[in-house]
C-alpha cells in the first residue's frame, strides 16, 4: 500500500478517538469558559485551557480538521503569555476570549458533523 493510503487508513482509524477527546474538551471548555469571567483562581484555569488547546492544535490539522487546528493554535498563542505570568489578572484580554469562543464554535461544528445522526451511523 502506498504511503498516503497507509496514512489515510491510520488517520481514519484515529479520527473516532480524536472525536471522543474532542467531546471531552468541549464539555471542559463549556464548564471553564464562564469561570474566566467569574472569580475562580485564574492560573490553574488558564493552564488547563492551554494544555487542551495545545493537544488540539497538535492533532486536529494532522487528522484533517484544519480549521479546528488553526483556531486551537491561535487560542494557545493567546493563552501562552497569560500562563507564563505569575499572577494573571482580570479583565482578561478580549482577543484571548474571542479566540476561545471561535474555537468553541468550531468544536461544536466538528462534533455536529461527526455525530451519528449526521453521518448516518
Amino acid at each position, binding site marked *: 500500500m502506498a504511503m498516503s493510503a497507509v496514512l489515510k487508513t*491510520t488517520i481514519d482509524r*484515529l479520527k473516532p478517538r480524536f472525536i471522543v477527546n474532542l467531546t471531552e474538551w468541549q464539555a471542559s471548555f463549556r464548564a471553564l469558559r464562564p469561570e474566566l469571567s467569574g472569580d475562580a483562581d485564574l492560573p490553574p484555569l488558564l493552564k488547563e485551557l492551554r494544555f487542551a488547546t495545545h*493537544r488540539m492544535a497538535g492533532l486536529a490539522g*494532522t487528522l484533517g480538521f484544519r480549521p479546528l487546528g488553526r483556531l486551537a493554535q491561535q487560542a494557545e498563542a493567546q493563552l501562552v503569555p497569560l500562563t507564563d505570568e505569575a499572577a494573571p489578572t482580570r479583565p482578561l484580554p478580549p482577543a484571548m476570549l474571542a479566540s476561545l469562543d471561535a474555537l468553541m464554535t468550531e468544536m461544536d461544528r466538528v462534533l455536529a458533523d461527526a455525530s451519528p445522526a449526521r453521518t448516518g451511523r
Partner: protein
Amino acid sequence: MKILAVDDDVLIHGVLRTVLGGAGYDDVTFAASANEARTQVGATSAPYDAYLLDIQMPGDDGIALCRWLRKEAGCRAEPIIMITAMSARAFLDGAFQAGATDYVTKPFDVTELATRIRQADRQSQANRRIRDDAIRLRALKAALEDMRRVDLAASVALDDVDGALAPLALENYLLRLGRGDLAGTSLIAFRLPGITRLHARLAATAYRDLLADAAESILAALQGSGALLAHAGAGAFVTVLPRGFEADLDEVATLASQVLDDLGLIDDTGLPIAAPFVVAGAHHCGMMTSGRDAIGVLHALSARARVDSLESAEPVHQDGSRQRFGLVRPFARR
C-alpha cells in the same frame, strides 16, 4: 535507525508510527513523558540513533528533556527533532539552545516530516561512521603500539640515530680492528637507572623515542670521539670509542644526562621523564690482540649494565658507596 519518540498524546504515537513506518523506519519506541523517556534511555542496551520530542508535556517539557539528553545522557551528536504545536519564537529558541537539531511544527506535513527524518538518518549514519572510525583508529593504534612493544631486556634498533648500530654490527666493527686500532680503543657502558619503571610506564613508541634520545645524548656528550653506540637492552648502552678522547666518565654521564634533560621529555600523561645516566663500566682495549677479546669485554660490560639496570637504581660498591669511574686512558689512537 533506532528512534525514541516522546509525546504525551497516544494518538500522535499512532500517526508517527505510520509516518515513520512508511518512510522505512520501524524501530521506534514511544514514551508518553520525559520521565518515561529517561527510563527508556537508561534501560536500553543499544543507544537510540535519533529522538523526536514533543515540547509541551505534563511534567518536564521536551526542551528540558532535550537538554538532559545532550548534557547528561551522553547523546552529544544524535539528531533530536522537536515535533510540536508550539511555533512561538521563544520555544524555537529554547529548543535549539537546549541542543535540538531540527524543529517540525504540528500539524504534520507528512512529506516534510519524512524528509526531516531522512536528514536525521543521514546525520545519524555519519555520526555512526565517525564513531566507528574512531573506535577502529583506537584499535589500530593499540595494535601498532603492541607491535612496537619490546621486551625490557631486548635491544632496540636505533635506526634514526647517527652513530648508533645494532649490537651485532658493533661487534663486527670490533672484529675488523687490528691490534694497532684496538690499542687506542675504549669501551664504555652507560645505563639509565629506573628503566624498569620507565618501560612499564611508557607506551612502546615513547619508550623507543626515549632510548633514541638517550643514545643521541650519550653521543653528543662524547662528541669528537668518533664513538659508535648500541643499545644492549634494559636501558644499557655500550659505546666503542676508537680514537682519542679524554674525560672524566662521570662528567660525561652528567653531560649526557643534561643533554637528555634539556630535551624536556614528557610521557603520555604530560609528566616529565627524568632519566639521568650512570656509567656502568669502562675498559681500555690497550694490549688486546684481537677484536674477539674486545667483544668479550663488551659482552661483560653489557651484561653488567643490564643487570645493574634491572636490579638496582644506582651502581653501588659492596660498602654501599656509589661507584665512581675516573679517566679512561689513553684514548689517543697511535
